[in-house]
C-alpha cells in the first residue's frame, strides 16, 4: 500500500527488498535526478511490509521533511517501528521526539525508556542523555493512542509486526508506568488472545500466528506505583500471506 500521493504505482511483482532498493535509487538519484517523493513512496511501501531499514528511512524522510512536508508524528511512528525491530538509532531518535514533545506528547519517562534501549544497543550518546522532566498537572493517568498498524492490511515479510503507540506522560504519583500490549485474532464473533506482554517503551514487536487473519490490539498503561491502569482504544488491522 502506497501512502504518498505521488510516486510509483504499487508493483506487487517486486519483492520488499527490491522496493527498498527502488527507494534508495530514487533517493540518491541513481541514475538520473533525485526524486525524494518517489523515494518516500517506495520506502513506505517496504516499511509497511516490516522491512526495518525502510521503516528507518521512512522516519528520517518525515522527520527531515524530505519528499514530504515535515510530519514528526509519522516520524515517531516509523522510528518506533524500526526500533521495535531492533534498530538502535531509531530508538535514540524516538527518544529525542519524546524528550522534546515533537510529534508525540512530551514524555520524559518514554524518552528515557527509548534512550535506555538505544544505550543497550550500543548508542553511546544515549547513555547519559539529559531529559528535561515533564510537568504533569493533576493525577489522572491518560490512555495511550494506538498509531500503527490501524485500519491496514499488512503483508509482512515474516510474521513479526511492529505495534506503535504514543503515550502522554503519567502524573508523578502514578510513575513508574509501563505498557501491556494485547493482540486478539478475530473470526466472526469469536476472539482469541494471540499475544499479551509488557514493554517499557512505546512500541512492541509481535509475532502473529500463521495465516491470514483480522486482528485488534490495544495498549494498557499500567501504573506500578498505584496499581491501576488505563486502556487505549482498540485498533484493527488485517494480515495476509
Amino acid at each position, binding site marked *: 500500500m502506497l501512502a504518498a500521493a505521488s510516486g510509483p504505482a504499487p508493483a506487487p511483482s517486486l519483492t520488499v527488498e527490491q522496493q527498498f532498493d527502488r527507494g534508495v535509487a530514487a533517493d540518491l538519484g541513481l541514475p538520473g535526478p533525485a526524486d525524494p517523493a518517489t523515494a518516500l513512496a517506495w520506502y513506505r511501501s517496504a516499511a509497511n511490509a516490516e522491512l526495518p531499514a525502510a521503516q528507518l528511512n521512512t522516519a528520517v524522510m518525515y522527520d527531515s521533511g524530505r519528499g514530504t512536508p515535515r510530519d514528526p508524528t509519522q516520524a515517531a511512528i516509523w522510528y518506533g517501528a524500526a526500533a521495535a525491530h531492533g534498530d538502535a538509532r531509531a530508538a535514540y531518535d524516538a527518544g529525542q521526539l519524546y524528550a522534546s514533545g515533537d510529534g508525540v506528547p512530551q514524555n520524559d519517562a518514554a524518552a528515557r525508556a527509548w534512550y535506555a534501549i538505544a544505550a543497550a544497543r550500543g548508542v553511546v550518546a544515549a547513555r547519559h542523555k539529559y531529559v528535561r522532566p515533564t510537568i504533569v498537572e493533576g493525577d489522572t493517568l491518560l490512555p495511550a493512542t494506538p498509531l500503527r498498524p490501524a485500519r491496514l492490511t499488512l503483508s509482512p515479510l515474516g510474521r513479526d509486526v511492529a505495534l506503535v503507540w504514543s503515550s502522554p506522560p503519567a502524573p508523578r504519583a502514578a510513575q513508574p508506568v509501563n505498557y501491556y500490549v494485547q493482540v*486478539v485474532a478475530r473470526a466472526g464473533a469469536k476472539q482469541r488472545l494471540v499475544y499479551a506482554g509488557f514493554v517499557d517503551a512505546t512500541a512492541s514487536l509481535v509475532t502473529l500466528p500463521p495465516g491470514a487473519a483480522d486482528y485488534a490490539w490495544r495498549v494498557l498503561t499500567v501504573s506500578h506505583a498505584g496499581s491501576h491502569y488505563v486502556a487505549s482504544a482498540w485498533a484493527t488491522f488485517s494480515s495476509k500471506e
Partner: protein
Amino acid sequence: MYSKLRIIGAALPLVATLLSHPCQAATASEPATPPAAVPDSISVYFATGSTAIRQADLDKLDFAARLYREAKPIVMQVAGSADATGSPEANLRLSQSRADAVFRGLVARGIPAERFQILAKGVTDLPVADKAGVPDERNRRVQITWR
C-alpha cells in the same frame, strides 16, 4: 478515571469494547512545525586551538544523525578545517582532530563507522579566505555532508 488493577494477564477485560471503540488515531497528524528545508550540510564551530565540541553543538550532531538514511552508498563526509593562525602543520593536525571529534560524536549516535569519509583540510579550501594569522571562527569548523 482509572480502574483498579487486579490481575495482569488474560483476565484483563479483553473484548467487551473491541468493536465499539474504533481507533481514532490512524491518520490524524498535524505537523507541529512548518515544513523544514533539509540542509545540504551542517557545520560545527570550535574555539581557537580547541577540538572540543561545545554543549550547544551536540544538538547539531543529533540533528545530523537524524538526517542520515540507511542505504549504501550513502556516506557521511566529515571535513575539518582550521583558521589561518598558527603553523600549517599544526592546523592540519588540528583540523584532523576536530573532524575526529565530530566523527566520534556521530558514531556515538549510532551511525556505522564504516560509512564515513574523514577529511582534514587544514587551512586549504577555507569557507572564508583570510590572510595568514587572522583568527576567524567561521574557519574553525567541521562540515558534515552526506551523499
